[in-house]
C-alpha cells in the first residue's frame, strides 16, 4: 500500500502536521495582540463597541487556541517519533530554546485561563486588560523561541561534530544563530498581520452583507489600520530576510529566484516557467533588482546555483512559493493603504463594495502567504534537515508504520476542522453582535445605530 520509504512518508506527515498547526499558531500569536488593542481602546474611549469586539474575538479565539494547543503537542511529540536520530543530535544543542518555549506556553496558558474567566470580575476594567499582557508576551515569546530552533536548522552553530559525537556545545550561540533575528522578525510581523487580516475579513463580510452597524465599521477601521502597520513591518522584515539569505544561505535565494549563474547586477525574475533545458520563459525580469534585494546595491554580485553542488540544490519549484508570498504581501499593503486613502478623502467611500471585497480577500490570502512562505523556507534547505550536518533521510525513523500514521493524522485533522467550524458557527450564528450589544449595553443600543 505504501511504496514510499519511511523518510518520504515522515516528511509528508511532518509537513501535514506543521502546515495545519501553522494556521492556528499564526492566529494564536496574532489575535491576542488585536484583542488587547481593542480592549484597551474600549476602556480609554469608554466605547463599549470596542470592548464587545475584544470579547467576541476572545470567544472565537478559545476555539482556535484549542486546536493550536493540541496540534502543537502533536508536532512536539512527532519530532521525536518521526525524526529520532535527528532529535538525538539536535536535542543536545537546541534543548534550551525548546525548553524555554514550553515555559512561554505555560505562562500564556495560565493567563489565558484567567483572562477568559474574569471578564466583569474586577471593578476597574484596567485590571482585566492587564491580564491580556502576559498572554501577548507568552505567545510572542513562544514564537521567538521556536523560530530560533528553526533558525538553527538553517544556520547551525554553537557546537562541533567529531564523527557522531557532538562537542563544545554553546547553548546561547545555537539559539542566537545568524538566522534567528530575521526569522523571528518575519514570523512575528506576519503573524500579527495575518491575524489582523483574518479579523478584517470578518468585518468586511458583515459589511458586505449590509450589516452596516457602527460595531462592524469600527471593527473594520481598527483591523485594516492594523493590517497596514503590520504589512509595513512585514515588508521590512522580508527585505532583511532576503539580505540574510544572500549572505548565509545563497542556495535558498538562488533556487527561489531561479538565479543560475553567479553574476553582478543580477535580474529579479518574477513568475515565469522553466522549459526542459532549465531556461526561464514567460517571466517578467526586473533588471538588477535581485542584486539590490540581496545586497542593497544594484551592481552587487549574487551567488548563483552554479556555485552549489548538484546534490545540495533545493527544488526549483520553490520559486513559485516565493513569488506568491511576496505578491500577496504587496497586495495586502496596497489594499490597506487604499482603504486609508478612501477613508481620509471625504468624497470617496471607504465602504465601496469592491474595496470591501478586496479587504475580505486579505484574510485567506495572508494565511495562504504564511503557508507559501513556510514551504519556501523549509523546501529551500533541502536536502538538509540540519544544514551542512545531516540530511533528511539520515534523520528519519526506520519504523515501517509511518504510512498508517499519515492516514491516522489525516483523519484527525479532518475531524478537528469539522469540529472547529461547527463550534465557531454555534458561537456566532445565533448571537449576532447587535443582540449582544443590546443585551450587555442597553444604553448604547438605545442611542441611534447604523449611520
Amino acid at each position, binding site marked *: 500500500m505504501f511504496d514510499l520509504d519511511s523518510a518520504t512518508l515522515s516528511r509528508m506527515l511532518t509537513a501535514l502536521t506543521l502546515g495545519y498547526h501553522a494556521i492556528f499558531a499564526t492566529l494564536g500569536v496574532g489575535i491576542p495582540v488585536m484583542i488587547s488593542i481593542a480592549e484597551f481602546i474600549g476602556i480609554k474611549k469608554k466605547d463599549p463597541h470596542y470592548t464587545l469586539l475584544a470579547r467576541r474575538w476572545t470567544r472565537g479565539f478559545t476555539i482556535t487556541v484549542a486546536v493550536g494547543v493540541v496540534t502543537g503537542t502533536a508536532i512536539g511529540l512527532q519530532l521525536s517519533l518521526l525524526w529520532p536520530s535527528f532529535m538525538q543530535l539536535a536535542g543536545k544543542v537546541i534543548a534550551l530554546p525548546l525548553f524555554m518555549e514550553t515555559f512561554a506556553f505555560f505562562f500564556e496558558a495560565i493567563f489565558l485561563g484567567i483572562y477568559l474567566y474574569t471578564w466583569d470580575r474586577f471593578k476597574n476594567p484596567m485590571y482585566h486588560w492587564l491580564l491580556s499582557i502576559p498572554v501577548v508576551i507568552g505567545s510572542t515569546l513562544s514564537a521567538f523561541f521556536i523560530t530560533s530552533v528553526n533558525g538553527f536548522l538553517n544556520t547551525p552553530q554553537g557546537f562541533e561534530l567529531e564523527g557522531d559525537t557532538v562537542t563544545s*556545545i554553546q547553548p546561547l550561540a545555537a539559539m542566537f544563530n545568524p538566522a534567528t533575528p530575521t526569522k523571528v522578525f518575519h514570523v512575528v510581523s506576519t503573524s500579527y498581520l495575518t491575524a489582523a487580516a483574518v479579523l478584517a475579513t470578518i468585518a468586511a463580510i458583515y459589511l458586505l452583507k449590509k450589516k452596516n452597524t457602527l460595531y462592524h465599521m469600527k471593527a473594520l477601521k481598527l483591523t485594516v489600520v492594523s493590517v497596514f502597520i503590520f504589512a509595513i513591518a512585514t515588508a521590512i522584515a522580508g527585505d532583511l530576510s532576503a539580505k540574510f539569505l544572500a549572505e548565509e544561505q545563497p542556495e535558498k535565494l538562488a533556487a527561489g529566484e531561479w538565479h543560475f549563474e553567479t553574476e553582478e547586477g543580477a535580474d529579479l525574475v518574477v513568475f515565469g516557467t522553466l522549459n526542459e533545458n532549465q531556461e526561464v520563459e514567460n517571466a517578467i525580469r526586473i533588471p538588477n533588482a535581485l542584486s539590490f534585494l540581496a545586497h542593497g546595491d544594484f551592481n552587487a554580485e549574487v551567488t548563483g546555483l552554479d556555485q552549489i553542488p548538484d546534490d545540495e540544490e533545493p527544488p526549483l519549484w520553490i520559486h513559485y512559493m516565493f513569488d506568491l508570498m511576496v505578491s500577496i504581501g504587496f497586495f495586502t499593503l496596497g489594499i490597506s493603504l487604499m482603504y486609508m486613502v478612501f477613508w481620509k478623502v471625504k468624497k470617496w467611500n471607504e465602504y465601496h463594495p469592491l474595496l470591501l471585497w478586496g479587504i475580505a480577500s486579505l484574510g485567506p490570502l495572508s494565511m495562504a502567504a504564511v503557508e507559501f512562505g513556510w514551504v519556501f523556507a523549509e523546501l529551500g534547505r533541502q536536502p538538509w534537515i540540519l544544514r551542512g550536518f545531516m540530511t533528511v533521510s539520515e534523520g528519519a525513523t526506520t519504523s515501517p508504520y509511518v504510512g498508517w500514521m499519515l492516514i491516522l493524522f489525516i483523519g484527525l485533522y479532518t475531524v478537528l476542522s469539522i469540529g472547529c467550524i461547527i463550534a465557531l458557527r454555534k458561537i456566532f450564528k445565533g448571537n449576532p453582535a447587535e443582540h449582544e450589544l443590546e443585551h450587555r449595553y442597553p444604553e448604547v443600543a438605545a442611542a441611534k445605530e447604523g449611520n
Partner: protein
Amino acid sequence: MSYELVGISVLWLFLYGYLIVASIDFGAGFFAYFAKVTKKDHIINKLISRYLSPVWEVTNVFFVFFFVGLIGFFPDMAYYFGQSLLIPGSIAIVLLAIRGSFYAFENYGSKENHLYMFLYGATGLLIPAALSTALTISEGGFIEETENGVHLMYGELFSSPYSWSVVFLAIVSVLYISSMFLAFYAKRAGDQPALDLVRKYALFWSSPTIIASLTTFIALSQQNPEHFQRAIDLWWVFGISVAFFMAAVFLIYQGKYYGWAFIAVMLQFFVAFFGYGASHLPYLLYPYVTLSGGVTSEAMAVALIVVFIAGLLLLIPSLIMLMRMFLFDADYVKGKK
C-alpha cells in the same frame, strides 16, 4: 547533586504534576459520562466544568513540559523512545487532541450530545493506558535494537502480565485521584448531592487502586528482577505511601476533612512515584540508557537548570494566582462569579 540527578528529579516532578492534574481531568470525563448513563449528570457536571474550564490548557502544558525536558536533558531517550513508540505515541496524540479540542468546542455549546460524552469518557481511560506504555517499556524486554534500528516487540507487550497490570493501575488510579479531588471540590462548593455521589465513587475506587499497586509490584519481579530488588530495598518508602492511602480513605470515610484527604492522596502518590523513580535508577531505559550515559553536555545541563529556576519563579506565582481565583475562591466554586 550531579546535573543528571537534578535533571531527572525536575522531570519526575513535572511528570508527577501531570499525573495529578491529568488524572483529575481524565477521571472527571469518565464520571461525567457515567453520571449521564445513570441519569445523575445534573448533579455533578456543572461542578466538573467549573473546575476544568480555566485549567485544561495548563494540564496539557505539564505533559509537553515533561517530554520536551526529557529530550533536553537526555537526548538519547528521543532516539530509543522515538524509534519504538511511533504507534502508541501517535494514538496518544490523537486521543489527547480529540479530547482537548472537543472540550473547548463543547464548552460553549450544550453538553447534551451523547456521543460526545461517550468519547470524552472513553478517552479519559484510553489516554492513561496509551501513555503508560512508555513507562512499561522503560523496564526493558519490550524493545530490541537491530542493525535496522530499534523496534517495539508488540507480541511481548500484549502478552506481558506486567504491561497489563500497569495499564490497570493507571486506569484505577485515575478514577481514584479524580473522585478524591471532586469530593474535595464538591465540599468547597457546599454541594451536598454532588458530594454524596463522588464520595461513593472515591470509596469504591480505593480498593482496586491498592490491589493494582500490589499486582504491579509482583509483575515487576517477573519483568525486571533487578528493579524489583532495588524497590524492595526502598520498602519503607512504599510503606509511607500505604500509610497515606489509609489516612486518605479514613478521612473520606469519616466525611469531614476532605481537604486533608486530598492532600493525603497527593502525598500517597508523591511518595510512591518517587520511590518507583528512585528504584528505577540508574537506568532510564533498561538496558540502553542510563542516567549518566544519556545526559546532555554540561553546558546545556547548566543552561537548562538556570532556565528552569527562572521559569519556576515566573510560574509558581502565576499558578498560585490561578488556583486562588478558581480553586480556592469560594464564591467562584459555588458558581457566584
